[in-house]
């Protein structure tokens, strides 16, 4: 076999001498590889976004709803169940969640808007130790009321007066520096001068984090709350737009800092209250107000709602509904060591614990995406396959046109294998160059789509900054595929070239 360096030199010289042949042969490869990498990169990116919304290695264990004579007899998700699940070999971790199971409402000021919202049904608690999305969130997201080191902040205070109409008041502000009380003035011009109601101020030190709780008339850290990226996406995509509010930055700490820090993220929570008139009549416990603060964004938070340290939820459920409510989890988020073990785990769960997995939209989407990816890859492979046939056709023509040259190579010492390698090398090089151009063309195409998306498509939840993710394996696969198919296309012509009788080839006119 001829030396590789000399083979390479000959192949390069032969390939570059005929532009027409090169363009005819490489054109299909360029188009095929461009579609191949673009299809793969787009489905890769869509898959990544999908996995962000529905982590595929995570499943949610729930107890099937069951009732007997109007009584809820559903299986109870408790610590024992969590322990049993954790003993399974395929389970990496199990995170119990507890929902706030009685009505609660929130009220807060955001950018001058008086926002009222329902909290009951949209709040749950998790182990604070699992929230580690960023340093600041990790530091703030804990059960402060159970934190022994925080007792120094338990200072006696006077809570704000409760309004007579039972409405939840806004979280009171701290007394501003150089505060001047409003002057007494008549309510109507010329009427009697009326002394204005004195404004209540939060008198707790570190007022950006602490408030005066009405239950024990002591200062407490506001209940730390995290929200999911889905909430931020919904806020940015729908809420902010319709209410003329600012878009939340991807860097949430920066967003909060720009708005004056944690103080701007505080709000009141009325336990036992509701924004839906008449729906809390079954609650016997007297409503009470406390305060929460949004401390960060976490992928561990419930998708739609707010998540806080589980201790708060347990205490509130116990306070309002009793011990049973304080020891029953709403779901258990199980992370598996391998997402392919979902089926095995689900079967075990059903057979042994009489529990089931919550319907996994993510799995359905992933299946659909897999099928779409398969179809797109098949389409691009068909294009590349056709281009390989085109290469074969061009090379058959080339071999016929170059019979004399190939015969000469045999006359000066080329073996049949050398001639085959020269032709295959030319096909491979055309494939490789076509592959590089195809990948480049694909990236250009992707940039154009991204540009159009960023400039002309309206914002929507989870809209990615780019629709394509060109992993190393995609473009490497593109190049290998291009060269491979080209070599495949060149195989038969190369075989014919090598089998050619040199004596006859040399006499060709």
């Amino acid at each position, binding site marked *: 076999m001829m030396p590789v360096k000399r083979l390479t030199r000959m192949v390069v010289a032969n390939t570059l001498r005929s532009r027409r042949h090169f363009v005819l042969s490489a054109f299909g490869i360029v188009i095929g590889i461009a579609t191949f990498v673009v299809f793969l990169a787009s489905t890769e990116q869509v898959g990544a976004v999908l996995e962000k919304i529905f982590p595929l290695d995570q499943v949610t264990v729930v107890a099937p709803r069951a009732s007997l004579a109007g009584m809820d007899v559903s299986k109870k998700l408790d610590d024992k169940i969590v322990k049993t699940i954790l003993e399974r070999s395929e389970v990496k971790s199990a995170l119990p969640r507890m929902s706030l199971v009685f009505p609660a409402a929130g009220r807060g000021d955001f950018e001058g808007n008086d926002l009222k919202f329902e909290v009951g049904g949209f709040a749950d608690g998790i182990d604070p130790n699992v929230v580690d999305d960023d340093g600041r969130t990790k530091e703030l997201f804990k059960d402060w009321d159970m934190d022994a080191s925080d007792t120094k902040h338990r200072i006696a205070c006077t809570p704000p007066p409760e309004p007579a109409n039972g409405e939840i008041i806004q979280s009171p502000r701290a007394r501003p520096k150089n505060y001047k009380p409003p002057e007494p003035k008549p309510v109507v011009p010329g009427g009697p001068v009326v002394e204005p109601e004195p404004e209540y101020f939060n008198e707790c030190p570190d007022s950006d984090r602490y408030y005066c709780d009405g239950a024990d008339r002591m200062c407490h850290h506001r209940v730390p709350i995290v929200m999911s990226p889905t909430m931020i996406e919904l806020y940015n995509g729908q809420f902010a737009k319709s209410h003329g509010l600012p878009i939340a930055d991807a860097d949430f700490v920066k967003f909060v800092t720009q708005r004056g820090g944690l103080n701007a993220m505080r709000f009141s929570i009325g336990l036992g209250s509701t924004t839906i008139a008449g729906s809390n009549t079954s609650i016997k416990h007297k409503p009470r107000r406390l305060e929460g603060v949004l401390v960060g964004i976490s992928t561990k938070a419930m998708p739609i709602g707010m998540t806080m340290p589980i201790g708060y939820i347990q205490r509130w459920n116990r306070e309002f509904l009793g011990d049973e409510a304080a020891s029953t989890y709403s779901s258990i988020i199980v992370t598996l060591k391998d997402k392919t073990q979902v089926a095995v785990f689900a079967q075990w769960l059903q057979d042994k614990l009489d529990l089931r997995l919550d319907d996994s939209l993510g799995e359905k989407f992933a299946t659909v995406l897999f099928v779409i990816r398969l179809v797109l890859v098949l389409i691009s492979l068909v294009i590349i396959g056709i281009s390989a046939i085109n290469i074969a056709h061009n090379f058959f023509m080339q071999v016929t046109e170059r019979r004399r040259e190939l015969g000469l190579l045999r006359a*000066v010492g*080329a073996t049949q*294998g*050398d001639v085959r390698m020269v032709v295959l090398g030319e096909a491979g090089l055309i494939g490789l160059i076509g592959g590089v151009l195809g990948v480049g063309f694909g990236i250009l195409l992707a940039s154009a789509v991204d540009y159009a998306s960023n400039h002309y498509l309206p914002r929507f939840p989870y809209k990615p900054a780019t629709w394509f993710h060109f992993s190393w394996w995609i473009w490497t696969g593109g190049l290998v595929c291009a060269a491979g198919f080209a070599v495949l296309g060149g195989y038969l012509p190369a075989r014919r070239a090598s089998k050619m009788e040199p004596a*006859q080839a040399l006499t060709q006119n």
Partner: protein
Amino acid sequence: MAAKDSSPVVRLRDVTKAYGTGAAKAQVLRGVSFDIDKGELIALVGQSGSGKSTLLNVIGGLDKPDAGEVEVFGVDTQAASDAQLADLRNRKMGFVFQAFNLLDHLNVLGNVTLPAAFSHHTKQDEVDHRGREALRKVGLSDFAHRKPGELSGGQKQRVAIARALFGSPELLLCDEPTGSLDSDTGHEVIEFLRELNAKDGVTLLIVTHERRISSVAKRVIAMRDGMLVETTDEALAVAGKGGPK
């Protein structure tokens, strides 16, 4: 027949070759037997279609006989592998064709050094040096970087000869080397080949219609209907019936 002082460079025994099948079958070689000794300059003459070029190709391993024995430098070309034959052509033999067979996309030096592409034995510096040396021998030192399209017919044939000489072959097989050249240029080529034989001792087998080659040849082998007519006088007579005198 010339006296043998060693084993022959080429040994042919009862070599036959036919093309086509059935009614279209043409017997091109009919039991050809002869030896070529080292240092000989042989002119192979005969009418068109008498089997001269086929015989040359069979000796060069570019074509395979149907039957008979062909030994070149002691190698049985019938039994030799493709790689052995290729190596033989690369290191021991050179070919010169009537149509020059230069590659237009390579320059003159590239054409001359083409055989080196299939050799493991030489480094690139040495390849270039030997290529230039071959060009010097044929008087084309200044044409190394020209393209074949820029050369005259005679110059092209000299480049082809330089390519054949590149590997310092012991046997040069020339198929109508002056066939595409005018008389003067043809004469120059003949003279060059004669000197090559006389000075460097290269064995030459030249298929030709050219009477002047026959006159400088040490031996003339004539072919008629695929058979040999070996005596020089008779061969010349046969040659006279065919190509130009």
